[in-house]
């Protein structure tokens, strides 16, 4: 192979990124890049400017992309936005913007929506301090609050953040009484977790790397004019579709028939295809699985193998050299070569990042010009690893640092091998490396020194790139770069043989799907907003092809959005760029607008996604007074209510057949986790002792005297409560003859006590004079109708997880035949916590059912 006979002069510095204070202008002006290479300077330069392809331009046919397929039947919701996460009261226009996560609002929303979870255990502890029934407090104790009056005072006020809310004396007293207890537990325990979750969501909003590489692929068919688009569809993106598309030279791409599909059991994150030695292969990456299909000449996929990746897969690439060979990388930092015949071969493993410390577990692997050498990338750099060499050695190909004059905070987002072995293309040793600021072309024969750097200035993360073959012999090769926000850039690269790769002209931007808005008819605001949101949906895949047979080269570009929409656009290479040529503006054709209208009509037929959250309507007075029962209720709560009214035990048979439940996982006591020790104590019936222990610990000498006084008041009431409890009885599990099985013993470890527990709470060993009133009150409590239903929502969702028996059958070599059946509410946004949700939800599901089967009147389990 030829090596460029003369490279562009650059200084070589070593060191960390962000240190370079060399003027960085060289990467911004495309004209300088086209000029500064000696090859571009003809010897007869005296005659004028060297020839530059200034008019090199791919002209879009329409001002924006058009829908190729009708919208899917599943509703789509844009999910969490910055507005949901960020604090709204700051100064927005700083030179350096600052994002402040709004934990308080989220916390208050949580408290309103799930007050039962947040406050039930504490409510139980403070039961002595509340009087649930009766107008007036007969006792003279100031520490007992009448709930009815309290709720009356609260009634009608709007929730959160109303500074003008009237504070009654009772409320004030209540807040003084409960403040330290409620505030501490909720804010400190939940706040921290919530902040963590919000930070993860915010990071995901800024950069969602799950779809790196793209989930849309073009499989060429038997002729140049026909091919297949492979993409995920469905609300959870778990249906892999194969849509045959014909590309006629004159007209728009046509979808031929309905797409064939394969139902997968996880969201599709990346789809890769490659034709090696005449064999078309298709690789798909899901969160925890990778799969490989072989696509026959007729376009039918035949499954080859499925691989389970325990820690989660982050990237998959197909070898351009050997058919059926793949590189898979996982969050654990391992990179494996995978062939269906020989299984897995671990090539590299390092949980640490390459150049400097970065917390991201994202890893990427691709091939190089040598079939046994792989590139391994993370956020900080890219390394070349010899699969046959001793482990641990390798050569850094790209270093996030002064070598490539990286900026501060610059990170690698995508690396891609650009090798193509056609004679008229670029060197087959080039690698594309994209960061949020720039793109680099690095030759593997000259590591660390980029051959080309271009400041792409994309307003979203560039996660997709595709190098296309030259449209005409001798023409520069188009390199497509796609951002998550749908932004597209097209660069023209030349440099074959003895010349170094360079930009052949100024890069151009292509229309994105939000540019298509003008093709749609004007709608009423709500639908218009919906359409706008839909068009703005983040892109998750990109595929482009230039059918070679056409006389005039046409670039067909397909784009897949996270809402499942496939849009296309066609671009023509400007025939002969004259000196006065200028970009002409495309306009909408009647066919295009008709196509958009059809699509819109279908879109508006799709029911809108149910709102994720709505502000609570707030009146407890009405809630307390409302007696009517729900007409349709699940059997469990009904039976429970009947049993309560009759004052008898609730038995297994009352509830009908229970789903066969696995024992809930045993609690894992963390070292210093206050919440779980408390919950554990509650389950074992030793909440009171826990509380006392806690009291003893927390009322240290450092406290303020005033607070201590309040605390002692509180603790005295609590100690009086605990004094009346029969601890020895409570600690031993109640022996119920109806026990179905010993493993049905309810001890879910982290189940937040939900409203079922609050119901039981009422019936606990409360002072005898109140028991009857409580019982009466309980029978009328509307919560009974509401809460089990509220809980049955996740139940029905999780039962589908449990019902399907197709757990992955893990083969000895780490491969599995079937990925696990799993559904997520919104597959796109719930990504990282998916396995944990599989494990966590059953325990949540069991909680209501099993606690329902408890004998809960006379001998209640302590704490519930």
């Amino acid at each position: 192979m030829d090596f460029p006979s003369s490279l562009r002069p650059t200084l070589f510095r070593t060191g960390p990124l962000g240190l370079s204070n060399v003027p960085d202008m060289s990467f911004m002006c495309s004209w300088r890049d086209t000029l500064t290479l000696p090859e571009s300077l003809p010897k007869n330069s005296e005659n004028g400017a060297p020839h530059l392809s200034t008019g090199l331009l791919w002209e879009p046919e329409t001002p924006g992309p058009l829908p190729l397929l009708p919208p899917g039947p599943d509703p789509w919701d844009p999910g969490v936005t910055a507005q949901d996460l960020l604090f709204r009261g700051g100064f927005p226009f700083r030179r350096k913007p600052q994002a402040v996560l709004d934990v308080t609002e989220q916390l208050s929303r949580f408290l309103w929506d799930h007050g039962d979870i947040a406050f039930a255990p504490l409510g139980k502890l403070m039961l002595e301090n509340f009087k649930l029934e009766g107008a007036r407090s007969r006792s003279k104790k100031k520490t007992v609050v009448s709930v009815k009056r309290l709720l009356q005072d609260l009634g009608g006020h709007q929730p959160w953040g109303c500074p003008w809310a009237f504070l009654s004396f009772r409320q004030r007293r209540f807040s003084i009484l409960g403040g330290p207890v409620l505030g501490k537990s909720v804010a400190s325990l939940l706040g921290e977790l919530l902040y963590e979750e919000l930070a993860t969501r915010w990071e995901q909003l800024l950069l969602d790397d799950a779809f790196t590489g793209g989930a849309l692929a073009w499989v060429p068919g038997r002729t140049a004019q026909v091919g297949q688009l492979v993409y995920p569809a469905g609300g959870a993106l778990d249906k892999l579709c194969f849509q045959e598309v014909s590309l006629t030279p004159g007209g728009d791409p046509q979808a031929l028939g309905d797409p064939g599909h394969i139902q997968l059991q996880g969201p599709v994150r990346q789809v890769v295809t490659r034709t090696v030695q005449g064999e078309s292969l298709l690789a798909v990456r899901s969160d925890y699985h990778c799969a490989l299909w072989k696509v026959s000449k007729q376009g039918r996929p035949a499954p080859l193998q499925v691989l389970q990746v325990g820690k989660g897969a982050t990237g998959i690439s197909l070898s351009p050299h050997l058919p059926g060979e793949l590189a898979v990388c996982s969050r654990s930092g391992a990179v494996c070569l995978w062939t269906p015949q020989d299984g897995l071969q671990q090539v590299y493993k390092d949980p640490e990042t390459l150049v400097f410390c970065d917390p991201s577990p994202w890893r990427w692997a691709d091939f190089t010009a040598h079939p046994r050498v792989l590139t391994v990338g993370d956020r900080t750099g890219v390394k070349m690893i010899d699969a046959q060499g001793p482990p641990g050695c390798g050569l850094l190909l790209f270093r996030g640092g002064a070598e490539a004059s990286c900026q501060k905070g610059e990170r690698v987002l995508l690396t891609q091998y650009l090798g193509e072995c056609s004679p008229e293309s670029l060197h087959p040793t080039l690698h594309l490396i994209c960061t949020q600021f720039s793109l680099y072309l690095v030759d593997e024969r000259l590591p660390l020194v980029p051959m080309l750097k271009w400041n792409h200035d994309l307003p979203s993360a560039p996660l997709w790139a595709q190098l296309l073959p030259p449209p005409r012999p001798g023409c520069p090769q188009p390199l497509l770069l796609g951002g998550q926000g749908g932004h597209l850039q097209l660069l023209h690269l030349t440099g074959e043989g003895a010349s170094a790769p360079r930009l052949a002209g100024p890069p151009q931007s292509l229309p994105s799907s939000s540019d298509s808005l003008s093709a749609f008819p004007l709608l009423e605001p709500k639908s218009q907003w919906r359409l706008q949101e839909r068009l703005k949906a983040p892109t998750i895949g990109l595929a482009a092809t230039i059918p070679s047979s056409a006389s005039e080269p046409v670039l067909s570009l397909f784009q897949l959005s996270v809402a499942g929409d496939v849009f296309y656009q066609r671009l023509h290479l400007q025939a002969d760029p004259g000196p006065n040529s200028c970009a002409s503006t495309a306009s909408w054709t009647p066919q295009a607008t008709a196509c958009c209208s059809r699509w819109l009509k279908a879109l508006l037929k799709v029911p809108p996604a149910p709102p994720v959250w709505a502000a609570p309507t707030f009146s407890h007075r009405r809630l307390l007074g409302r007696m009517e029962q729900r007409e349709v209720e699940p059997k469990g709560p009904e039976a429970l209510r009947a049993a309560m009214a009759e004052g008898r035990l609730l038995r297994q048979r009352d509830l009908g057949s229970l789903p066969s439940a696995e024992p809930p996982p045993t609690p894992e006591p963390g070292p210093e986790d206050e919440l779980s020790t408390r919950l554990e104590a509650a389950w074992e019936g030793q909440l009171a002792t826990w509380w006392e222990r806690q009291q003893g610990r927390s009322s240290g000498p450092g406290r303020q005297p005033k607070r201590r006084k309040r605390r002692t008041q509180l603790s005295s009431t609590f100690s009086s409560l605990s004094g009346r409890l029969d601890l020895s009885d409570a600690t031993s599990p109640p022996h119920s003859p109806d026990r179905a099985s010993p493993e049905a013993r309810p001890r879910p470890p982290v189940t937040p006590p939900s409203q079922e527990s609050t119901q039981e709470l009422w019936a606990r060993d409360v002072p005898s004079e109140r028991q009857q009133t409580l019982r009466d009150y309980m029978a009328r409590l509307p919560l009974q109708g509401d809460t089990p239903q509220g809980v049955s929502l996740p139940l029905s969702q999780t039962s589908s997880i449990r019902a399907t028996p197709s757990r992955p059958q893990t083969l000895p070599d780490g491969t599995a035949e079937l990925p696990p059946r799993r559904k997520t509410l919104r597959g796109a946004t719930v990504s990282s916590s998916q396995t944990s949700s599989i494990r966590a939800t059953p325990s949540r599901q069991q909680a209501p059912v099993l606690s329902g089967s408890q004998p809960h009147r006379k001998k209640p389990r302590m704490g519930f």
Partner: protein
Amino acid sequence: MSDFSEELIRSKTEDDKEESCVFSGTGMSFPWLQKHIGTVETGGKKEKDFAQTTSACLGFIQEALLKHQWQQAADYMHSYFQILEDSDSHKRQAAPEIIWKLGSEILFYHPKSSVETFNTFADRMKNIGVMNYLKISLQHALYLLHHGMLEDANRNLSFHCTYIPHLLYPFILQLLDYREVVHEDDYAYNTASQNMFDHSWKTSVNLRALIQTPGVWDPFVKSYVEMLEFYGDQDGAREVLTNYAYDEKFPSNPNAHIYLYNFLKREKAPREKLISVLKILYQIVPSHKLMLEFHRLLRKSEKEDHHKLGLEVLFGVLDFAGCTKNITAWKYLAKYLRQTLMGNHLAWVQEEWKTRKNWWPSFHFSSFWAKSDWKEDKALACEKALVAGILLGKGCRYFRFISKQDDQVLRKKIKQIKKSVKKHSVVNPGL
């Protein structure tokens, strides 16, 4: 006045918070962060109208540039100059660089732009802010050079030569690169230009100092060495090239070794010397086309380990995707394999084959390649078939396919291949 002092205070406090654009924890910065933050309604104070219009205008210019709408970009640029009057000192200072970057881009591509327009623009821009003077002068000179206006470029630059800071070397070198190219023409064809000659000598003194700095200076080194050779300073040239190739502070640039090798070849250096240079190139770029030359040198050498290396080099070349159709390499390999096996060095072949036997068959010798090679290049197919037969035995698909072909012209050759395979195949050495 109050506005100004406010700006001073603000810029100071905000500089302190520079870290805040980086999201806590990851250390990564996001250029689209402001966009997200901007969507959140705030009760805080709004950006000034002035700043809003200028940033919108900047957006329009960038959009127009990326759509190659030069006229539109020029129109917007006209309005963008208002940023030079921004009360925000930070923005005001950053403005000239942005204006120069965008403006030069527009003027370079605009169909109605001319050298005069560009000159006027550059001269105006140089006088806005001292910091930009050098940068703009250098780029302006570059532009002039490309338009063949060498004299103007020289005049433009000569003023700064004395105090160009170290950090601007890359820029100068880019310029010098062109000068050198031009000079090359000069002293080869137009020795009359004494003035230029002087100038080249003067710059060469500077250049000698500059190439001590770690970096990639290919065009410069090349021209400099040629110049030294022109003056007959062979030792000086050798020293420059050796230093360029072997200094550890420099990136491992294959061209450095190639230049040194070519120089030594011109000098008619002994074979040992040439081999030692190419040995290093072999370690950096085993796929380089010089490797075939390296193989020839090794083959001719008397040393046995050179013969072994010769085999290794050929296998190494054919490992790479870009070299699979290199018929010379296959021819060499076929010939050398036979030679090695005849020389009773089966162990050498086995050693090379050990790491390749699990992937070469599907990489080179699949039936797909057999068919396509036969269709495209029968000579290549024959060479490959011979190698496949030797390495994999006559049962191998590639060999079987080629040996079954009935071709009038190649019948004799195929017969020979069959014979060689029978004689030399590694798989069944007994046969």
